[in-house]
């Protein structure tokens, strides 16, 4: 393997041109590139000196710079947003030393199937701000499903509405330091024990992720005391591949059970 070219830009405006070059990719400091191998990579754009480590909580939005680390985000959100789904999910992802390096931007851009960031961000209807071949804010679902949005672009930040949600996060792991076979995000708003808004996302299924709108619809306006959760969840049909955690069939059943438990937990909570 030949030498790697390194770029250390200090201004954002030089980045788009670098992104156009063949084999040059951004590197925020996380582990994805080292882990997955770098055969096609000819050079790295080190993002550390760019003004991408921002955190804003204002005007009803939380905006997080793409080079913010998981632990950095948890720390910043713990003061005013300690109950946030993002604190729950990112706070358990990987391990302490890895959370100090994995960035939210890198995690979104690489979107590994075990990601602990994507479920919550999809549930929060987050948007990413891009520069490069494409510029502007885009929904995170569009970003991960449309290739054109990921070609020669850099994520500057991710933002989502700053709202109060009841939240639940589950990771299907074998031991405590493990990458989840799947994870479940549930966000819920209730008024007088009636579900006013509910968002349910699973990451790790065959299609990589799914927002279970069918289930959300069934639960909308349901009185939490009346809800027969097992019956409601039973008809959900999500396919999983076999993984080291278990067979496809087992994982599917496990997901159904944990989904039921999660919704139960969140509805029965204070």
């Amino acid at each position: 393997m030949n030498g790697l070219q390194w770029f250390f830009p200090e201004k954002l405006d030089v980045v788009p041109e670098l992104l156009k070059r063949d084999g040059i990719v951004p590197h925020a400091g996380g582990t994805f590139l080292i882990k997955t191998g770098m055969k096609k990579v000819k050079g790295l754009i080190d993002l550390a000196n760019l003004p991408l480590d921002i955190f804003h909580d204002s005007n009803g939005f939380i905006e997080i710079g793409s080079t913010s680390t998981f632990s950095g985000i948890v720390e910043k959100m713990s003061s005013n947003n300690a109950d946030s789904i993002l604190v729950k999910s990112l706070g358990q992802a990987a391990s302490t030393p890895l959370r100090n390096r994995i960035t939210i931007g890198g995690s979104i851009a690489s979107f590994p199937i075990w990601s602990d960031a994507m479920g919550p961000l999809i549930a929060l209807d987050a948007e990413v701000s891009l520069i490069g071949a494409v510029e502007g804010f885009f929904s995170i679902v569009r970003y991960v499903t449309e290739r054109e949005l990921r070609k020669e672009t850099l994520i500057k930040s991710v933002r989502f509405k700053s709202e109060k949600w009841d939240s639940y996060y589950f990771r299907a792991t074998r031991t405590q330091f493990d990458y989840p076979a799947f994870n479940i995000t549930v966000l819920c708003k209730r008024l007088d024990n009636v579900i006013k808004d509910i968002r349910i996302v699973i990451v790790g299924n065959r299609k990589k992720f799914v927002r279970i709108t069918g289930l959300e619809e069934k639960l909308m306006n349901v009185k939490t005391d009346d809800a027969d959760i097992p019956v409601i969840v039973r008809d959900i049909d999500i396919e999983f591949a076999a993984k080291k955690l278990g067979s496809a069939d087992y994982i599917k059943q496990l997901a159904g059970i944990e989904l039921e438990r999660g919704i139960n937990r969140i509805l029965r909570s204070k």
Partner: protein
Amino acid sequence: MKAIFRINGQEKELSFDSRATLLTVLRENGCTEVKEGCNAGECGACLVLLDGKPVNSCQIFAASIGSKEITTINGIGDIHSPHPIQEAFVDTGAVQCGFCTPGMILAAYSLLEENPEPTDDEIKRALDGNICRCTGYVKIIDAIRLASKRMRENE
């Protein structure tokens, strides 16, 4: 490539391969106290502090360190003047083979800097990136609890 690395308070200009990890550069330049256990960010033997925060040095490109301060176990104490955490590890029997020990102690150091009186759960969470096959963790947790107590008493 060449860059200046700040290791344990000293600056060194080192040459390294553009693809090299921080672990490789450290070990090839005299810092063999930083160990390689898996080269995959899964065991914590290579753990060092980067600007005071624990990281797996095997998962970081040396080229991207910049001016960040690197702290290895040598940077917090030695056999002549050990850090209280090192002494606590000795006193509770937390050191068996010692291969995971520098990483464990640095993780503990970073925890106690931030949280001088951690609960057992907080201690275990701080160690979640360090595996040990010898001790079963029991005496390592004892050591950190003891170090926390001693360090608070000495303030």
